[in-house]
């Protein structure tokens, strides 16, 4: 569904993405993991067209994205830190997003607006909202137009436990509809019953890409967090052993 071909991006001298290639298919729920600053958000932003890659191409449903911007109709994006026009109220913002999407035959999905209780504060200005409430608005907007692909960048950071549970339930619901979900998070425990595939990034490269069953099988661990820890350790020894032999 989404294919990345040799995507590279430099910010000044810093290489953020180093010739990344991969494919994401429908019905997958992919966890994008890696340390801070490894290029996760940049990769997401290149898929969305917010960052223009230096080289390589992105193909969405068989079409190259830099020639056709319409593919973004099929993507719901929840940014890590949502920044919104300060003077707009929540209802104005939602109205504007509906306006942009044009397609009036589609009934917007307002489930999250209700379950987060946003309809009670709909006339508040974005400037006055707390970080968590802003995240709720971001989440509600991402799911609103029944996108085929959901890209969630640290979706639960800043949300209270009840809200993050509601969001997680919503993600599972959408996943069952066969959507592609791309999610980054540092809280591995909460990805356990969501994710079908793990992508681990480091220094702008994919270290490994594996279905979660394979990962659990290989490491013999049931918990995702332990499995990841195990694989990182074994990688380290793999990398260091040949050097020792040489020495």
């Amino acid at each position: 569904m989404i294919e990345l071909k040799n995507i590279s991006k430099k910010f000044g001298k810093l290489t953020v993405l180093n010739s990344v290639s991969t494919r994401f298919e429908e019905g997958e729920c992919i966890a994008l993991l890696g340390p801070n600053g490894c290029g996760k958000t940049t990769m997401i932003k290149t898929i969305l067209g917010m960052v223009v890659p230096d080289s390589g191409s992105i193909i969405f449903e068989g079409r190259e994205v830099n020639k056709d911007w319409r593919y973004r109709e099929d993507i719901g994006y929840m940014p890590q830190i949502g920044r919104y026009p300060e003077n707009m109220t929540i209802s104005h913002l939602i109205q504007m997003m509906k306006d942009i999407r044009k397609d009036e035959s589609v009934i917007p999905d307002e489930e999250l607006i209700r379950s987060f209780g946003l309809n009670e504060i709909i006339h508040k200005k974005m400037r006055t909202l707390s970080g968590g409430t802003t995240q709720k608005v971001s989440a509600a907007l991402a799911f609103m137009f029944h996108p085929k692909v959901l890209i969630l960048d640290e979706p639960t950071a800043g949300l209270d436990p009840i809200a993050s549970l509601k969001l997680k339930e919503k993600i599972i619901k959408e996943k069952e509809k066969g959507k592609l979900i791309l999610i980054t998070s540092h809280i591995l425990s909460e990805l356990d019953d969501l994710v079908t595939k793990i992508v681990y990034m480091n220094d702008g490269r994919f270290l490994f890409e594996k279905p979660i069953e394979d990962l659990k099988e290989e490491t013999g661990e049931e918990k995702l967090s332990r499995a990841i820890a195990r694989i990182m350790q074994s990688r380290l020894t793999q990398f260091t052993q040949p050097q020792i032999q040489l020495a």
Partner: protein
Amino acid sequence: MKKILKYVIADIIQNKIVIIYTLLLLTISFSVFSLESSAAKGMASLLNLVLLIVPLICIIFSTIYIYNSAEFIELLVSQPLKRKTLWLSLFGGLASSLSIAFLIGVGVPVLIYHADLTGLVLVLSGLFLTIVFVSIALWAAGMTRDKAKGIGWAIALWLFFALIFDAIVLFLLFQFQDYPLENAMVVMSFLNPIDLSRIQILLQMDISALMGYTGAVFQEFFGSLNGIVISFAGLILWIFIPLFFSLRRFAKKDL
């Protein structure tokens, strides 16, 4: 395009600065016309308002507006919209709201006190300068991510066009006074939209005493309709060239 434009204009009007700007222009225009003994003198005073204050306010307001819209731009770039549409909507919103402010603030008083060809040329030049400096502001705002630096650039550009450019022209004239520079001067004046407007208005006003040196030379070449057409063509180029460069930069910008 229309939808985004609607939101940009609504936002600019909400912001009130444009309304204050309109009232300021109205007050100055009316007081100039009622203070001076003749409407022609009033026009001469308005000239400086149109040539200096209007570009200054347009360039600074537009630059600040672009920086303050960073969130708006970031939000919309991830939506199914062309970047070009977004940027042109920002340009259109700024240009149209500042133009309307100018038409009310200067156009209406001129229409009341001095409704002739000279008045028309003054209003038309002011209108062009408004749009030209919005276009230059969009280009300046794309140069750096730092808001303070961006505004600094905007002010420097205004200073260049309003003062420094003429100083350079004078300097060149004195340095090379032994040579025939008339043709060169014609070309030079096309490098500055403020000069172009000034020449047009002064040619209409017939008050050569107020003319800058560039203007005096220019009169020999364009004392006719041709002159007006060619210099307005120059102003149109001044709108499109900075806009084109800013558009090209925005298409590749990382957000």
